[in-house]
C-alpha cells in the first residue's frame, strides 16, 4: 500500500516537474528552449550512476554474506539503471544537436562517460543472461560490477583531463546548469527534477526488487522441493 502511494506521488512529481521545465522556467539566454531537456537529462544521468553504484555495492554484499537477496538488488538496480542511462544519452544527444550543432561531442566528460557506462551495463546484463547457475551468476556479476564501478571515476577524470588540456570551454556547456552562480530558478528546477526522478527511481527499485526477490524465493523453494523429493523417494526405497 505504501509503495502504491509512493508510486502515485512519484508520478505526480515527475509530471509536475516536466511541466515546470517545459513551461514555467524561463529559457536559457544562450541555448534557448533546447536547454530545457537538460533537467531530465542530468537527473537521469545521476540516477544511472547511482544505480551502478548500488549494483556494485550489492555485489559486495553478495560476496560477503552469500544472501541471494543482495543479488536481487544488484539485478534490479542494473535493469533500472540501464534505462535511465540510455535516456540520459538520448537526452544529451537531443540537447547537443541544436546547441552544439552536433549530437555528439567527444570532449564532454559527462556524455562520453555516460556512454561508457551504458556499455558497462550492457556487458553486465549480458554476462548475467549467459550464466545459468544462480550462484555462479551472482558471483560473476558481483566481481564484474565491482571492477566496472571502479573504472567509472577513472574514465570521468581521464575525459575531463582530455578536455581540460585542450582548453575548449564552450559556451554551450551543460555545466552551466550546475553552476552555483546560475539563477535560482534554474537550480531550483534542476533540484526539483532530481527529487522527482529519484522518487520514481525508488519506486521502480522497490517494485523490481519485489519481483526479483519473489523469483529468488521461488527458485529456492523449487530447490528445497527437489531435495525433499529425493529424500522421500529414498525413504520409500528403503
Amino acid at each position, binding site marked *: 500500500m505504501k509503495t502504491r502511494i509512493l508510486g502515485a506521488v512519484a508520478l505526480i512529481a515527475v509530471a509536475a516537474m516536466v511541466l515546470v521545465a517545459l513551461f514555467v522556467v524561463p529559457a536559457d539566454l544562450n541555448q534557448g528552449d533546447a536547454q530545457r531537456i537538460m533537467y531530465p537529462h542530468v537527473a537521469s544521468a545521476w540516477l544511472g550512476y547511482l544505480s551502478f553504484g548500488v549494483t556494485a555495492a550489492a555485489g559486495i554484499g553478495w560476496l560477503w554474506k552469500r544472501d541471494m537477496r543482495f543479488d536481487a538488488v544488484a539485478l534490479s538496480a542494473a535493469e533500472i539503471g540501464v534505462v535511465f542511462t540510455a535516456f540520459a544519452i538520448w537526452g544529451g544527444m537531443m540537447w547537443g544537436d541544436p546547441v552544439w550543432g552536433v549530437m555528439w561531442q567527444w570532449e564532454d566528460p559527462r556524455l562520453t562517460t555516460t556512454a561508457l557506462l551504458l556499455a558497462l551495463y550492457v556487458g553486465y546484463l549480458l554476462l548475467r543472461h549467459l550464466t545459468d547457475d544462480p550462484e*555462479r551468476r551472482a558471483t560473476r556479476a558481483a566481481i564484474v560490477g565491482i571492477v566496472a564501478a571502479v573504472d567509472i571515476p577513472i574514465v570521468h577524470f581521464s*575525459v575531463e583531463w582530455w578536455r581540460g588540456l585542450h582548453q575548449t570551454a564552450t559556451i554551450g556547456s551543460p555545466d552551466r546548469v550546475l553552476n552555483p552562480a546560475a539563477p535560482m530558478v534554474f537550480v531550483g528546477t534542476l533540484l526539483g527534477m532530481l527529487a522527482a526522478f529519484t522518487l520514481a527511481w525508488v519506486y521502480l527499485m522497490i517494485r523490481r526488487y519485489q519481483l526479483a526477490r519473489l523469483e529468488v524465493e521461488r527458485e529456492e523453494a523449487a530447490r528445497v522441493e527437489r531435495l525433499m523429493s529425493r529424500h522421500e523417494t529414498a525413504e520409500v526405497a528403503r
Partner: protein
Amino acid sequence: MSALRHEASLALAIARKDALAELRGRHAAVSTLFFAAVVLLLFGFALGPDAQRLADAAPGLLWLALVFAGVLAVNRLHLLETDDGALEQLALYPITRRAIYAGKAVGGFVVMLVLGLIVLGAVGILFAVDVAGAVLPLVATVVLGAVGIAAVGTFYAGVTVRLRAREVMLPLLMLPVLAPLLLGAVKATAAALSGDPFGELGAWLQLLVAYDVIMLVAGAATYGYLLED
C-alpha cells in the same frame, strides 16, 4: 614480508610455467604478433595512402592494434589452463588466489610488452613517425600500457573462460574498461612523438600509473572468487 616474497615467487613460478608452455608448442605469441601486424596493414588500407593522415593517426592505431591483440593474448593465456582441468587443479594448491592472478598477469604483461615494443617499431616504419627520437617516453608508455592491459585482461579472461559466447564476451567486457588506458596511452604517445609541446606527457603517464595500480588491486581482490565455482 617473507610471506609476500613467497607469494611473489609463486606468481613467478606460474608465469614461468606459462612461458614454458607457450614457447613449447602453442605458437601463440607468434600468431598474436602476426595478428597485430595484419591489423596495422588494414589500418594502412583503411586510412591511407595520405602519409600525413597516417602519421597523425599513428598513436591511436598503435594502441588500437595492441588492445585488440591483447584480447587475443589474454584469452589464450587462460586457455592454457583448459589442458585437462588444469585451472581447477591450479586452484587446489595451497596458494593464495592473489598469487594465481599475479602469475597470470605477469605472463600477460611479458607478452604485451614484447608485442608492444615490436608493434611500436612497426608503426614507426609503416606510418613514418620518428620513434627513435623519443624512445624513453615511448617505451615507458608501452610498459605502463602493457601492465594495464594485462591486469584488466587477465581478470576478464578468467571471468569468461567458461562462459558461453566467450569470443564475443571477452572483448565486450574488457574493452570499455580499457577506455581510460587507451586514452592515456594514445595521448602520451602523441605527446612523446611531437616533442611534448604542451607539457602534458607527465600528466598522461600519471593517469596510466593510477589506472594500472587501481586495476591491479581490483583484479587481485576479486579474481579469487572465480575459482570457487
